[in-house]
């Protein structure tokens, strides 16, 4: 199998918020850029973000980036890197104003400024009263942002490769990244795309859980590519379970519902969050609310005939607020839960939502990995931004509305850094002789297999194991058992076959290749989770219920080779301000 080759200055993998923001920098700087995407850009999963984008504009109430930074550090349960967090929070206002200038249709206040609503974990004055920080376009902020970024890229003549799936990174003996292999879905052709810089912006991988708010496309393709290329993955044990997924369906109901004044009830009609978070109540951080809900359900105070969910009440907000600020939620509740929230509460459960870990980067978007001289040497030519990246601004738990901010701030920063790198390295390095071999082996195995495991069966089993063995609460015996089961599943994934061997838009082949990526994400998650014997943020161990800063104030690094773990220090020193010291985390 010889692969045809095409050559670019830059390749961006993924056309969600981060990929498109980076692409804009590269296109406007005049570089020959290819943006690959499995789906048409406006179908990327950023489109499903609802509640808002965080920035301390102070349009409704006093605010500043120091407070935002404190909340983000605290929300991360002190695992976030304070240099990156300062960088993001300081850039937030500029990033939001820029989106507005691009034409993003934010809601407005009476004075014409951008509308902001309260969200979980946002405070004034370093842990004081609730702040009002999330800039919103009704409950369709991600849709408004993604379409605006696509539109701006149309204006900049960005070259999109629509319905192309990236398969593997190409690295040479020096460890430099020189391009990727990719599959054009419509024709089935596999090509080498050579580039001076490659940005991974493939988003999350929430499809490793049976119950997930994530789209079908969120299979962690860039995460798998990174792992197969011998680069470690960081903090993979930290997965956010969003408190309010529609029970049974998994579809997201924005935290903005609670931001606008909605709250949760158990079967006794009790507003139970008052017990778990006396100050912030329903607007405590997501990990705190999800654990409280899981505890209510576990202790028999769940609702419905199976006592397996709780209720999100918002009818008291009134029809006008719901129709104006939460119209998408009303539509979702009617379609997926058969209730009209103007009259009835929505049945909800904690649902896998966001990957805090991912590909280790610095705040310039450069991928970093340990070498002999230190824990964070730059991998030349490789960048990552958005949910795939572990910068780490979210640490052990992400605050709502910080993700859209992460996309545009680090999308832009990585685009700028790539542009600088390409200017300094104007010539392509020669591709190694083995370029494309990993991909060739994967495709050859799949094409030769005429019997074996069905892709759907293996991926469904993978999702079930992750759900049962590595969920909201983590038990030592279930983690150990889960690792053994995941090893079996990984073996089975090597024996999959597809009936369809044709070339034109073969989605069976795409799903089989995606499974390879899901496996890397799932194994790295459960192995990292089993090793971390403390509870921090979204990682809650039944046998180690406290945060243990003496032993575990450090980032996990996992390598595919030998499923090996190492650790590296958290960046406690911000860029210009004083360190926020470790504190017990209460809401």
């Amino acid at each position: 199998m010889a692969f045809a080759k095409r050559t670019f200055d830059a390749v961006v993998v993924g056309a969600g918020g981060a990929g498109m923001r980076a692409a804009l920098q590269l296109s406007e700087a005049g570089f020959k850029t290819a943006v690959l995407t499995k789906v048409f850009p406006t179908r990327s999963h950023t489109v499903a973000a609802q509640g808002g984008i965080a920035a301390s504009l102070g349009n409704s109430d006093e605010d500043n980036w120091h407070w935002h930074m404190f909340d983000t550090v605290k929300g991360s349960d002190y695992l976030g890197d304070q240099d990156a967090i300062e960088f993001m929070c300081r850039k937030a206002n500029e990033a939001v104003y820029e989106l507005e200038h691009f034409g993003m249709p934010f809601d407005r206040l009476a004075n014409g400024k951008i509308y902001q609503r309260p969200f979980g974990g946002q405070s004034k004055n370093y842990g004081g009263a609730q702040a009002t920080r999330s800039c919103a376009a009704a409950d369709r902020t991600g849709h408004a942002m993604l379409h605006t970024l696509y539109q701006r890229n149309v204006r900049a003549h960005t070259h999109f490769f629509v319905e192309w799936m990236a398969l593997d990174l190409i690295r040479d003996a020096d460890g430099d990244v020189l391009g990727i292999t990719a599959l054009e879905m419509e024709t089935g052709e596999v090509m080498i795309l050579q580039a001076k810089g490659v940005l991974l912006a493939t988003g999350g991988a929430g499809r490793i859980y049976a119950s997930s708010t994530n789209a079908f496309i969120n299979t962690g393709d860039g995460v798998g590519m990174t792992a197969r290329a011998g680069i470690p993955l960081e903090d993979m044990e930290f997965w956010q379970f969003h408190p309010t997924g529609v029970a049974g369906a998994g579809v997201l109901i924005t935290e903005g519902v609670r931001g606008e004044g909605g709250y949760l009830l158990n079967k006794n009609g009790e507003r139970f969050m008052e017990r778990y978070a006396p100050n912030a109540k329903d607007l405590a951080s997501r990990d705190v609310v999800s654990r409280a809900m899981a505890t209510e359900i576990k202790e028999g105070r769940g609702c419905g005939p199976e006592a397996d969910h709780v209720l999100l009440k918002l009818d008291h907000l009134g029809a006008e607020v719901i129709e104006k600020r939460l119209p998408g939620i009303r539509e979702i509740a009617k379609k997926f839960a058969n209730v009209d929230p103007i009259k009835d509460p929505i049945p909800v459960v904690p649902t896998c939502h966001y990957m805090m870990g991912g590909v280790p980067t610095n705040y310039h978007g450069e991928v970093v990995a340990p070498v002999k001289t230190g824990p964070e040497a730059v991998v030349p030519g490789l960048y990552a931004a958005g949910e795939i990246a572990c910068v780490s601004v979210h640490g052990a738990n992400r605050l709502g509305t910080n993700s859209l901010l992460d996309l545009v701030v680090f999308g832009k920063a990585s685009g700028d850094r790539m542009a600088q790198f390409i200017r300094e390295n104007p010539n392509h390095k020669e591709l190694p002789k083995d370029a494309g071999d990993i991909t060739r082996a994967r495709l050859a195995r799949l094409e030769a297999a005429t019997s074996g495991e069905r892709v759907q069966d293996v991926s469904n089993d993978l999702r079930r194991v992750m759900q049962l063995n590595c969920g909201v609460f983590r038990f030592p015996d279930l983690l150990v058992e889960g690792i053994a089961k995941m090893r079996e599943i990984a073996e089975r994934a090597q024996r999959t076959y597809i009936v369809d061997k044709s070339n034109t838009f073969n989605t069976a082949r795409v799903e089989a290749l995606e499974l390879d990526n899901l496996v890397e994400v799932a194994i790295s998650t459960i192995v990292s989770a089993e090793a971390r014997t403390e509870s921090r943020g979204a990682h809650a161990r039944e046998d180690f219920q406290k945060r243990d800063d003496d032993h575990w104030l450090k980032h996990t690094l996992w390598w595919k080779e030998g499923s090996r773990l190492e650790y590296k220090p958290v960046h406690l020193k911000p860029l210009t301000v004083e360190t926020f010291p470790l504190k017990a985390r209460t809401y």
Partner: protein
Amino acid sequence: MRFSIYRYNPDTDEKPYMKQYDVALEPADKMLLDALIRIKSMDDTLSLRRSCREGVCGSDAMNINGKNGLACVTRLADLKEPIELRPLPGLPVIRDLIVDMSQFFKQYHSIKPYLINNEPPPETERLQSPEERSELDGLYECILCACCSTSCPSFWWNPDKFVGPAGLLTAYRFIADTRDQATRERLDDLEDPYRLFRCHSIMNCVDVCPKSLNPTRAIGKIKDAMIRRTV
């Protein structure tokens, strides 16, 4: 449940055909997309697009019992058997339920679907009153699924010349935006026997839009704006 699904793979099939599937559904299979995923797990040769499964990405538009819609937000309980599924009408079929949407996006791109404002932006946001902003409601929410344009006879006849309901809805989204300064150029561009005026208010677009948007009304407002500027 019984399904009849349009199948065509140019690699292996001389011509398209309808394939019958009898599927035992699980209680959790509530939406049409759930059933399609189940069918695909039995027959991996069936190809379709899908992603968010909640009606916001616009991937899984198809013709469902004769009417365009999104599989992920169409309840199985509301469908008459056998459920007949075909690719969106009027666009070339790539394979099975997957159509070539190039023509649709070409028309979308033709209306300059981005804010045009050549003044240097202020340090903070450009101001817009809530009333001005509300002019964009019912316009900006389009998900580019193409249900509307591919149900429009005018688009079927002239897909290369008529912008179609989705593109025109977005054209009006920018005309209606107080921050956009290119209203005159936008109206000039649309003042053409085909680009705008092939719309004959058949209103299929309104009938099928999964987001309950009203392209016909937006088109009417573009026409009003044209009339206003001539008097």
